[in-house]
């Protein structure tokens, strides 16, 4: 009954830029879905990965740990991570955990993609 329902779909938004559309929950139980999406994006040669939280229903500390894990991997692979679509509440959580210093948070997909493409 309480299985985490996470969908993480990857799409190539621009050359070298992949968006991961996250829908549902981000908890410790989302590891498989998120890691698979990250691997998929990396396999497509993404230099910048944009996390879309527009479909996020619920995120807990386990999910934050998972995002940190992805950040560590992205850092090692020299990839940039951006995000958009966070609600005010989760934006606050990104700020107080200082995750916002490692993930560039944007208001819209357009903004995130413009920055990601410019980093080229």
């Amino acid at each position, binding site marked *: 009954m309480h299985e985490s329902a996470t969908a993480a779909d990857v799409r190539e938004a621009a050359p070298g830029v992949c968006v991961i559309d996250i829908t549902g929950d981000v908890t410790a139980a989302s590891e498989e879905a998120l890691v698979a999406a990250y691997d998929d994006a990396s396999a497509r040669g993404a230099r910048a990965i944009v996390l879309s939280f527009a479909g996020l229903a619920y995120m*807990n*500390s386990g999910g934050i*740990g*998972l995002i*940190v894990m992805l950040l*560590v991997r992205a850092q090692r692979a020299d990839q940039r991570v951006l995000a958009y679509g966070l609600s005010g*509440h989760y934006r606050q*959580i990104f700020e*107080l*955990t200082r995750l916002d210093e490692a993930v560039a948070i944007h208001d819209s997909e357009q903004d995130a993609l413009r920055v990601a493409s410019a980093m080229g």
Partner: protein
Amino acid sequence: MTALTRSVLRKLAPRRRATAADAPIGPPAAAAAAAQPARAPVEIAPDDPLLAYLQAAGEAVDVEALELDSPALRELRAARVRIAVPLVAQGELIGVLSLGARRSEQDYSSDDRRLLDNLAARAAPALRVGQLVREQQAEAATRQRFEQELEIARLIQQHFLPKQLPDLGGWQLAAFYRPAREVGGDFYDVIPLPDGRVGLVVGDVTDKGVPAALVMSATRTILRATATRLVEPGTVLEHVNEHLCPDMPEKMFVTCLYGVLEPATGLLRFANAGHDVPYVRTAGGVVELRARGMPLGLLTGMAYEEKEMVLAPGDSVLLHSDGIVEAHAPDREMYGFPRLKATVGRGPGGQELIDVVLADLDAFTGPGAEQEDDITMLSLQRTATAAAAPAAASAGDGDAQVLAEFELPSVPGNERQALAGVAVAVAGLALAPAQLERLKTAVAEATMNAIEHGNENVAARAVAIRVLHQPARARLRVQVTDGSHGGELPAPEVPDIDAKLAGTQLPRGWGLLLIESMVDETRVSSGPQGHTLELVLYLEGDPDDDA
């Protein structure tokens, strides 16, 4: 030699074989078949006269020579089938071999026909065995699916029943729930209400299995949420009905009795949505708690009559489901209301009354009888003459009102229920949206902590959650208690994003930081129940706090 195109045989459902068979027929003649793609088998409708003809013929039939008004026969001719050989096993037509013209274009000889009949006679039993094996496999798969569904239904049901009943000073409260093998939709609930009042619920959803369990869980959730907001039992049922009606599946509804007890005075106010009438044993005999009302989920705009009665010391109430009165003896006699009423009149109260009813029911249905429907009882007896426990949540809580109190098994992911339960409980306080979001995150994290660290993910060890409101102090307090009794856990390291990104700290470990950042105060205490983490929210917050 004949050109045997192919035998097309399909499983015939056993229950249909008795009346008719939709025996499929093979594609057309080889000469034609060589040049044409194979066609779909010809379906013979159950009422097609060809079916009876083939079944009776028992030998190869010349399709061209047949004189029958049969759609299937026309189709066979169109497919250029010349000979149809019935495959009959144990007197049942189970398929047909269909053949086109001979390669030589000559008619089939009597030798050919004998050979075909022989072949059909040998093939039919083997084919039937194959069909039976397939049928059995399909039945086994269906049975397995059914059992899985029952298990899911049982899990849902059990999950939404109270794990333990509140301790009401001066009252004996006991409950019993036993699902039938094919789980029904019974439920009961005991809801702590403001001012020390207690909501008592017994209900029954029509239908069985997963659909009933889902409707039951929805009803119980809506009822709980409504009961803590509204006072009058009739109004509560009205609201529940309005919420249930739009989404209620067709032909389903819920019967439900809802009563509100004031333990201190013995006043029981109740309303009934078409549920079996409860009995009260009083000094003057057994009385029925009657109140008019339609079952929930049928029609909107329903009103529910409200009645009340004062339970005197010694009085005993039994709320029950129809699984008791509709149980049958081996001679099909029904247990019935009069017998239950008499048992209540004889019996004591509380758990003993439940035991007496069960013993009487078992004696009535006979040894080894399978229980036909869920059996649910909620038994309440006023035992003491002294005034019952006061409304306060506990010593030192002053004006605190308990908005909700519930328990969850220590299963990862259950924190979602905790936050949902707390959100429902505080719905009447009109928190600012951002404050509510922060409370939900804090409750979820505190519950995760209790599940994982306090109770070590052992499902049977419950996490208890209590929501208290102190209007005079403008405080909301949520207590999350696990079952641990060990010493204090070592203080976890303060999470640091730089250290985590550098790999010198694990990526996880954000829970406590979140909890402390989301609420105004946190307090940790230990008691006989275990460790409690209390989250305190100041209700007169920043008026601009609306994100």
